[in-house]
């Protein structure tokens, strides 16, 4: 029996808060399993332990063991959880400088991350350093616009991955920031940078043609910039088709609620980003039975 669930984030009504709309075939709703919970982080920057109690901005906050307590609690409550990261796992504490990313990967694996993309800092110990750390990861790295074919990372990353959760087909892919100028050339070697918009469009279209119900882009482009021409998540959302949700990073932006943009087709795209250092765990709930799209984030204090 073929499941047919339509998610069409289409028209939006009025009002101060712009929102996505998901619609489901009425007949099929009953078959769909309740709720999909998308948990996400970005720019965790090797913040293994909580910030010190006397920290000026984030006293006692963050820390992966606390994050895991919250993730576990949510996993006990929710059947269908997708846990994603938008890059810059590395760099920020002596744990990284000392253990070269091994611990970060082990912990993310233990937390059950489903996928991540690479941020610019994930190149900080070179491609070889990343590859060494990646040996401790049991989840895929999704990088659609870094062409690693002439490097040692050839075949070590995927452009996208399709997950099946809650009766939905969920296509996830990753889009990275341009490395030139951000990362010393010798660190990324022969990595080729592909146009983020064009690549994102191609991959999203491909996922659409594979009948994905939900298409998620893990982006490390940054939320938005003063320079209107600099590619950001807001521009990515506006200039592409078929992406439903952008989980961003790089700019360390604390969003109180997700931003809604309108894509090229006139459909709504949700953008979320949750600061940095694992202070927050981003959470977006998709209530499949009622067609609700609920976003929230959990602060790890």
């Amino acid at each position: 029996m073929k499941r047919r669930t339509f998610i069409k984030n289409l028209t939006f009504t009025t009002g101060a808060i712009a929102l996505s709309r998901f619609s489901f075939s009425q007949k099929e709703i009953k078959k769909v399993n309740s709720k999909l919970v998308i948990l996400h982080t970005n720019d965790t920057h090797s913040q293994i332990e909580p910030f010190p109690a006397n920290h000026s901005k984030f006293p006692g906050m963050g820390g992966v063991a606390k994050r895991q307590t919250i993730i576990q609690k949510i996993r006990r409550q929710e059947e269908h959880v997708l846990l994603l990261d938008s890059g810059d796992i590395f760099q920020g504490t002596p744990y990284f400088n000392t253990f070269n990313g091994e611990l970060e990967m082990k912990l993310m694996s233990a937390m059950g991350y489903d996928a991540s993309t690479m941020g610019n800092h994930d190149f900080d110990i070179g491609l070889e350093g990343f590859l060494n750390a990646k040996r401790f990861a049991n989840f895929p790295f999704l990088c659609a616009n870094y062409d690693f074919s002439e490097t040692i990372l050839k075949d070590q990353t995927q452009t996208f991955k399709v997950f099946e959760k809650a009766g939905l087909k969920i296509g996830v892919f990753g889009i990275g920031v341009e490395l030139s100028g951000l990362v010393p050339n010798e660190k990324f070697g022969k990595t080729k940078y592909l146009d983020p918009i064009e690549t994102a469009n191609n991959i999203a279209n491909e996922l659409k043609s594979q009948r994905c119900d939900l298409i998620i882009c893990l982006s490390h482009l940054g939320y938005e910039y003063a320079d209107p021409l600099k590619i950001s998540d807001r521009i990515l959302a506006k200039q592409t088709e078929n992406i439903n949700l952008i989980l961003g990073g790089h700019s360390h932006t604390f969003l109180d609620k997700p931003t809604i943009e309108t894509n090229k087709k006139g459909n709504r795209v949700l953008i979320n980003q949750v600061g940095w250092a694992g202070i927050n765990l981003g959470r977006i709930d998709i209530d499949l039975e009622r067609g609700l799209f609920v976003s929230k984030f959990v602060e790890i204090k």
Partner: protein
Amino acid sequence: MKLRIIIVLIAGAGLMACSSRLKVQSATNREAVSADTRQDSTLSSIIQPYKDSLDKRMNEVIGNSNNDFIVARPSSNLMNWVADAIFVNQTRNVRLAQPLICLLNTGGIRSSIGKGNITLGDIYKIMPFENTVVWVELPVSSIPEIESYLVKSGGEPLANCKLEKGKLVINGMRENTTHIWVLTSDYLMNGGDKMDFFKKKTNFNSTGKLIRDILIEEVKVQGTLSENGELRITN
């Protein structure tokens, strides 16, 4: 504490023949997890051996000092030491075609060094940030802006130059010099601390080297910290 804002909008019914009437909802939900949120024991046990090893590493003695090295405007022995360390580190085996100075930010040196042993952890305390060293080329026309910035701020770490009565005296300046190079941090070059004169850069070169790593290297080279307490900013 739970704060929840829910806005529910009813989307136009009958937009699509086969679709149900949809509610569209967005919510911001901050679940404040108190400072004593339990740490997951499985993860803590993965972390513990790394933490023990790291703590041990941070206690490693990498050098010593005969004096207290402190941060104090307009200039101080620690400000001079940090700027000199970067300058020396970056100019070993380098022949300079143009004048080169080092200019950092006082606020970026986060601690002092006490008399006695210096541990790796001490250097992490001085420089917790992940800033890297960059070489920035500036036209000489930007020098007055650097001068007024230094006068206004009251002093930043400098090497290979001095600010005397508001004028920058740079070693190696010649009459026909058109550009100088500045060793600084990526943070400052990219607009940190509003050093706007870096916007006029004509060229730059990222080393990718952490300032902290350079300081560690130089402590090891020196063994006992060489002190230079000269005032590099004078009225």
